[in-house]
């Protein structure tokens, strides 16, 4: 990798791919943890809204180009280039456009958006202004997970303050344009993070995903052109306008640019969110920043519970965390929420927890998810971990993967199958052991469930 970079562009400075690189400076989380960082006064002192001013002084296309040049990709999980997504919005139409910030963050192992909104709400609001300008929207909604009470309160307060200061409102920052941002609180459903279900929920309807096409950019909320972006994607837009696309593109690998919020959970010394450049190795993230595991680890999900797990090997640990490398290993960079799985925790036990979550969160619209996961898989796994399983159950489980994956209406079903199937592929013997012997191979976290 390095060699190629040196050959093609010898004169360019080497890209920043480590948090230890002295040139790297955290920006997204720069103010997280600082007292009163969430106030407008603090934010303004620290350069907030400068990016938005630059953005609004230019044309929407200029903002889109800046985002495209920076190489920013969606931080909600799928990694679609944000600037390109903005450019999908219709150019000449008389319809109102909407920007929706997806702050439903409900993916197990994922909590990066939360602290950003709690500690630096103005960064997100500034990002909303930038994004709204880029897609010619006058109204933006922040759809926030219902349980995020402090974040919602801080955001609402921040919006009021920004409005009072003329940063939002009928003549936002004096550019003669109305720019309004509203917070919409969810009611506790993971599916509301799926962008089309989110739009239904925002409209007051049942949170079932919608058929695509039409895509949100053609007909989103209230049938109007809409763009849905993750909190960090939007906040990054503000930073790119403040510091320039070159700054952003100076970090990361060839196709995965910028700073990224990795966050670690599981048996690790210092769980938490770490802002690091993309391309940082998993070893650096887990050992240098996370302080290293406190138990023997056998695998980890690289980006939230939905991403297929990777074995905890030297090869994987030395891998640079970016979209391409993850894809090459059959998984996803996802949200960056790394979940460490201790060896002593039986994988079947752990996967029961996952399946239980997805079964509970299934919206019920389509058959494979509602019946396959919501009814069958969850009971099958329950049977296995309660010691009543038999080898045929494992065969059925394997067959169910194929009958569900790729067949459901939205990605929630696949999000359940992918990690479970990866666990099955990596640790088949644990599944077979519990089915054969009625007890788990590893008993470290036994008695976790009251199965009866």
């Amino acid at each position, binding site marked *: 990798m390095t060699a190629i970079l040196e050959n093609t562009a010898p004169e360019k400075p080497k890209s920043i791919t480590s948090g230890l690189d002295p040139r790297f400076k955290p920006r997204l989380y720069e103010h997280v943890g600082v007292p009163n960082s969430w106030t407008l006064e603090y934010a303004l002192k620290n350069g907030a809204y400068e990016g938005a001013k630059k953005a609004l002084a230019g044309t929407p296309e200029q903002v889109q180009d800046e985002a495209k040049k920076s190489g920013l990709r969606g931080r909600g999980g799928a990694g679609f280039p944000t600037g390109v997504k903005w450019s999908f919005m219709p150019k000449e139409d008389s319809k109102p456009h909407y920007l929706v910030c997806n702050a439903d963050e409900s993916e197990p192992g994922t909590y990066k958006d939360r602290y950003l909104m709690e500690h630096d709400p103005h960064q997100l609001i500034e990002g909303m202004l930038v994004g709204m300008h880029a897609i010619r929207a006058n109204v933006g909604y922040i759809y926030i997970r219902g349980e995020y009470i402090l974040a919602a309160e801080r955001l609402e307060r921040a919006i009021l303050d920004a409005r009072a200061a003329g940063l939002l409102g009928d003549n936002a920052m004096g550019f003669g344009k109305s720019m309004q941002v509203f917070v919409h609180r969810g009611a506790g459903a993971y599916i509301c993070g799926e962008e089309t279900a989110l739009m239904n929920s925002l409209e007051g309807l049942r949170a079932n995903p919608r058929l695509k096409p039409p895509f949100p950019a053609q007909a989103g909320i209230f049938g109007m052109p809409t763009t849905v972006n993750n909190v960090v994607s939007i906040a990054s837009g503000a930073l790119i306008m403040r510091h320039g696309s070159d700054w952003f593109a100076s970090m990361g690998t060839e196709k995965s640019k910028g700073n990224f919020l990795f966050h670690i959970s599981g048996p690790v010394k210092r769980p938490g969110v770490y802002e690091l450049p993309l391309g940082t190795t998993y070893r650096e993230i887990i050992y240098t920043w996370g302080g290293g595991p406190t138990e023997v680890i056998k695998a980890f999900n690289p980006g939230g519970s939905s991403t297929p797990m990777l074995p905890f090997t030297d090869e994987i640990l030395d891998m640079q965390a970016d979209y391409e490398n993850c894809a090459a290993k059959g998984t996803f960079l996802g949200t960056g929420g790394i979940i460490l799985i201790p060896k002593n925790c039986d994988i079947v036990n752990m996967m029961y927890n996952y399946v239980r979550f997805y079964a509970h969160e299934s*919206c019920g*619209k389509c058959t494979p998810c509602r019946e396959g996961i919501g009814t069958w898989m969850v009971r099958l796994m329950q049977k296995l971990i309660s010691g009543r399983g038999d080898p045929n159950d494992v065969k059925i489980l394997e067959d169910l993967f194929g009958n569900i994956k790729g067949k459901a209406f939205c990605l929630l079903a696949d999000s359940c199958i992918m990690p479970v199937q990866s666990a099955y592929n990596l640790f088949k013997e644990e599944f077979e052991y519990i089915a054969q012997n009625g007890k788990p191979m590893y008993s470290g976290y036994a008695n976790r469930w009251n199965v009866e």
Partner: protein
Amino acid sequence: MPKVIVNDREIEVANGTSALDALFHAGFDVPYFCSNEYLSPVGACRMCLVEAGSPRKNPDGSWMMDDATGQPKLFFFPGTVASCTLAISEGMVIKTTSAPAVKAQAGMMEFTLINHPLDCPTCDKGGACELQDRAYEYGYGEARFEFTRRHADKHHALSDFIVLDKERCIHCKRCVRYFEEIPGEEKLDFIERGGHTYIDSMESEDLAGRNLGNFSGNIGDICPVGALLDNVARFRGRNWEYDCTQTTAMNNADGASIWVDARTGRIERIRAGSNSSVNEIWINDATRYGHEWVDADSRLKTPLVRKNGKLEPASWDEAVAAIKAGLISTDKTKLGVYSSADITLEEGVALEKFAAALGTINVDHFPRLNAALSSVNRPTLDELARADAVIVIGADLYEESGTTYLRIEEMLKGVVSDLKYNHGTALADLRLKERMDRKRNKLAVFAPIRVKQMEHAGISEVYAIGGELELLKQLLASKSNSNFETTPAISSAAKLLAGAKNAVIVLGSFALASDAASVLAAAAKLGAKILPIPAAANGAGLEFLNLTPGQNGRTYGQFEGLKTAFISGYAADRPKDLEFLVVHTTQLVGAALKADVVLPQASNYEKRGTTVNLEGRFLPVQQAAVNGGESMDLIGAISALADALDVKLEIRGTRSAGRELNTRFGLDFENIPLEGVFPSKKPTAKAAATLRFGGGDVLLTPRMWQEKMLIGSARVRESIGLDNLMLSSTDASKFGVKDGEKLEVNVNGQDRTVIARVFNTASVPSLPALEGDVVGSSAVLKVAMAASGDD
């Protein structure tokens, strides 16, 4: 048209066709549950999985080629894809029988069945169930799911007419989508989520307060399983025991196709038939559930003859003898012969010939308008659904004509598919969406009371009753001069008309009741097609026959000077001064109680013939396997009369009537197609003055439930909302009735409670003191005011 390859067959299908319809068209099959040709595609059941791929184009428009084969390269969707939500494209390849497709379908069938109770032996849908059929064809045949199934309420009443079995529901969402998309009233939704999801109505906790609207029964037809059950037909029979007859509904002039399912001579169930040009696959609840009277204990099944002042059961021979004795010395030219207007054309022409043979000019059919419907340029219902402006005047279509109402709802969505299979079945339209924006500004509704349709109309106004002519005049003035001063609604409607290319004006009972001729003439000046709603089921057909009184002849309801009369259908009271009265009817109510001879009448489910709907479309009426006892249709009753009177008849059966009609209309009346036909030639329609609102008349607002449907059905009686009785302020003060007050009235032999609506205008007919015969909007009404103002 694009070429598509399904398995090994290449077919051509129109752009916009779904892959699901394309593969059906090619003669293949996949299971499907959520898709329905008239509903938006949702892709919820995931049963219709296929493999599909299509070629792509380079930026220059040429096909991307596959170097290995030299053919355009096919880009396949990963795995399988739902065919119901996938639009075909040129060169698409669809595989329905490949190993991955077969596995996907079987796996999904297994999921669909794991929570299904499989209580087919006690399920009303058993034997006609989409899930059952598909499970046989595509399922594994053996269950691997060993856990307990979901248990839920199996008898959850959604309304008086519909019971939901929550266990059987497979969550296809057809019923939910139906309500929002077809009648445009959201009545059901999913509650809870995941495996706990179930269907329910948020209308009201209390069943009595639940109103699922006038079109609720259709959800039972489209439910692919036995989850939504027809409570009237519940447990009445198994599907294979029913004798199923497709015919045309005769309770109104819509011409809706229905299936009459009979068992052991009783009608147990009515379902919607499919006629893509008329009712599509929808009928209103009166058409569906309003059949219990046919088999009610009170149904007349033998003739009755008055002996010693009492009506006694008799044979037809005795009845003929009694008629002979009563009529033998009568002056036949003074004999009045009348029939209700919900008879077939065949019966109508028999009556016409009979009157001619008698030499009487006292012949009429009722209720009818005083103008010919065919005198205006009528649209078809398909044209109505494609109109770019619809103005409804003086109609409550929700009650008067369910089909017209629904086709206007279709117009509001702005998407009407032109795609059909060769056999006439509609293809799914991928442009349909859940919760589509409605083109409300294309619809204007004017009525003397607030009507349901106003909720969906961009332009609406309540006008003073009787003000239709003035309204039409103002519309015309405003249309030709935009500065003309009038109400905002009229001026908006005039603008809408002026800017439209395919406008339709619908005129209903309020507008047509008193002087249809003038109203139609005024409407015709507006340059739009006009759809007048007939006053009865076959009003649009009978107007082509000689069934109106000749000069100085007696109109129905104006019997002065008549000595004897024959009335077929419901008559409120025995006309005064009659020496002899023969009534041909199904129930012993009204005038029949005072008749000298009563002949049992065959219901419209028990005869063959032809009817003409509001478009002017000729539709077949078929005989269902119903045991009507000794009852006879009008041709049979006339034959008996002719025997008694020694009159020679040309027409003694449906066939000979059909032969007479063949020559008049240039149609083969033995073979009228189920979807109907427009005749090549039409005789000039006959119209005559009608005294619909003479002194003492009252007007009830229209309602889809007919009085006879209340007989034998407590369910119908209870579920019916209260009607409005219109009365003038003069009468209101005379009887001490206040606006909004409840009154007891007797209508067509049935007691009902109505709500008084007081209008401050002379156009409302005045109420009779206590009783009186009147001709109302949809039937002859006998109104007896009880306790008026006493409370």
